């Protein structure tokens, strides 16, 4: 045996031992939260139960039925921010909008120059600044890809329940409406 082959064999051996060790020590995951948008899928046995929320509780031996495609909310009503500095969500459909090295469809309406013509909220001046706070003529390259931060919302039911409470609600709880 050449020295290289011995080294390879040793590496595979160490890797195998490590993986085996990790798997035996890993805690048995349980499916904790009942998914909100789940589809009732018959589960055969407890052992074959899926732990993956994206599978909506379907057993590993079955294929979960697909949820209907969600529709993008297109009502053009600006939504409240859930926390300070949250990038505002997009209140309209953006199907087929081209944002690449050649063109930025979002900036057609949301640029500072065209926002009045289209009555669209212009992007903030911070989006024209580079990281040294120098204001540029065009949108800053680091802010160029809008959907990195700003996203559309759909009518899809959330897959997992969420009890998030904003800081404002904790400081001044909204009074119960008496329902």
């Amino acid at each position, binding site marked *: 045996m050449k020295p290289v082959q011995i080294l390879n064999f040793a590496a595979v051996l160490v890797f195998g031992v490590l993986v085996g060790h990790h798997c035996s020590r890993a805690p048995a995951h349980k499916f904790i939260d009942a998914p909100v948008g789940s589809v009732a899928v018959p589960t055969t046995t407890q052992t074959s139960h899926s732990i993956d929320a994206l599978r909506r509780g379907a057993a590993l031996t079955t294929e979960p039925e697909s949820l209907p495609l969600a529709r993008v909310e*297109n*009502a*053009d009503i600006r939504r409240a921010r859930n926390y300070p500095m949250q990038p505002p969500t997009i209140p*309209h*459909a953006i*199907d*087929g909008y*081209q944002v*690449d*090295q*050649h*063109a930025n*469809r979002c900036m*057609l*309406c949301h640029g500072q120059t*065209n926002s009045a*013509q*289209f*009555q*669209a909220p212009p992007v903030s001046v911070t989006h024209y600044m580079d990281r040294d706070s120098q204001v540029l003529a065009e949108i800053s390259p680091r802010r160029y890809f809008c959907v990195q931060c700003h996203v559309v919302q759909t009518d899809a039911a959330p897959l997992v329940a969420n009890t998030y409470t904003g800081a404002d609600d904790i400081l001044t709880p909204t009074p119960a409406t008496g329902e």
Partner: protein
Amino acid sequence: MTWRDRILGIWRLFNSPSRHHSLMFLTLGGFIAGIVFWGAFNTTLEATNTETFCTSCHEMKNNVFAELKSTIHYSNRSGVRATCPDCHVPHQWTSKIARKMQASKEVWGKLFGTIDTREKFLNHRRELAEHEWARLKANDSLECRNCHNYSAMDITRQSPRAGAIHERHLLSGDKTCIDCHKGIAHQLPDMAGVPQG
């Protein structure tokens, strides 16, 4: 017998009265031949006015047609498809012939491989797009309006944003479709310096 004599001979043959054929044969024959010629001409013209013909060359198939496929003009909820000539060839006859004559330049481009690679196509894309923008701007987006007639457009069924903008800029006539809807069916070239909206 020189070439000059031959040509003169043919000219004399066609320039002299018919010796054997009746006037009725000649007029009716000419009429029928005219119908056949016109039918053949129109059939050929229409054959070059189809999606199949346009996408039979790889320049169109791999670039603009591939991009069209993901847009709403190719696949949509109602199953109405706008094919290449619907937007790029005028429907009215004289304008169509004029456009077809212009398109002979495209045959030249095909023969000499002006855009026969993706890189060459991208390098020419801005110029090619500007031709189409200029054409649609000049004819008030006629090819859009062949289907999207403003008087038949129910803006209450559009999203509030789209309805308001159409009412403000399209109804008043200060803008035409292509002013805002550049790149509706194909990807845009480098838009640096192009006034938008």
